[in-house]
């Protein structure tokens, strides 16, 4: 049986500064996931020193706890990712943008 997969663009052309969290995403059908955070260029060259994001899981999509994995994206990097498995029913990223802002597109790639 071919494994099903789906990539969701969970943030698109969103500008983060300071603390952030992505929208709750249901992923109970999937066994593995990768979050990609890609930094988009800005006309005024605005950037940040770095961005950190922690994978969080939840039993209900409302209350969240750190899963243990995280990613770091430096201001001069285009993209970073973090892999996660055995996450139950819900996933999101929560993190912080230090010293500036980041214009991002965020993908959640899920696979059975």
């Amino acid at each position: 049986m071919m494994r099903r997969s789906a990539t969701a663009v969970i943030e698109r052309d969103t500008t983060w500064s300071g603390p952030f969290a992505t929208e709750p995403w249901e992923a109970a059908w999937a066994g593995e996931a990768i979050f990609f955070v890609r930094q988009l260029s800005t006309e005024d060259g605005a950037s940040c020193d770095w961005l950190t994001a922690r994978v969080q899981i939840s039993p209900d999509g409302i209350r969240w706890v750190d899963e243990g994995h995280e990613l770091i994206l430096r201001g001069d990097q285009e993209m970073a990712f973090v892999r996660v498995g055995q996450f139950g029913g819900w996933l999101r990223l929560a993190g912080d943008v230090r010293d500036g802002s980041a214009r991002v597109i965020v993908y959640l790639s899920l696979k059975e």
Partner: protein
Amino acid sequence: MTPIPGGPFRPLPDIIFADDFDRGLEGWTGLIGNYEHSLDSVLPGFRDLRPPMLSNATTWDTGTGGGALGTYSMKLATRARRQSLAVGIKRLTFSQACPIQVETLFTFKPEASELRLSLADVGAIGVILDLQDDRCRVMPHLRYRNAVDGQLAGHWQFKHRAPSFRNIGDSGETVSHFHLGPDSWDDVPNGQQQLCYNEIATKQNWHYLRVGFDLASMSFTALQCNDRHFDVAGLQPMTMPAMPNLWCMLNLVLFAEASADRRAFLYVDSVVMSADFGAVQRRDDP
């Protein structure tokens, strides 16, 4: 051929698709406004949209609710912000300009982030077809307006007045119009309906919806939700001149809108689109 889900479905003779979200997203995807060169050119109303997800409808107090006919449904989730939209779309083309029918089992709920009824926190849920024949682009719009500004409404509505197009980018080849806004909706005559919401935000009851539309006459033929059959004689679709790249387009759109600063969720267990191909021959050879 895709098997028809059980339940209340009574499709026309020819099945175009029968989507069961226990099998995956079945070709449903997110909507994006048109753009050129940069995402900055997307019209504001289209910018903050996310694609559908697969849900097993798990709640904090009772666990997994599942779907109407299985485990998973397609879920459209708004942001926790008043008038935030969530939109899912499936894109096809039609092979015959004949009567078609859309049937779905759906339910809607606000995020159960407060221990209260939250009955009026979902603003609206709706269904749109996006069609084009040799002459016109036609966009039948229907929605169930559940509430506005925290007050219950409980009325079916349609929209036929088209917003103006805006040029996108600098090539002269791309235009866009934001037709999903809260403006210009008209009440379906005698379109009041109270749906079973149940007594707390975590209890879901599934509803049956049937929409009929004739691609030959480009007019509504049916609107049924649960036991109510509404008169569609006075309903008009949004109509505009044909566009260069959309011939025989047959898109189906589902959407949800928040009425409060709380996430609104539309769950769709299954969708069946059917057609009556024989109607063309019966019309030509009476």
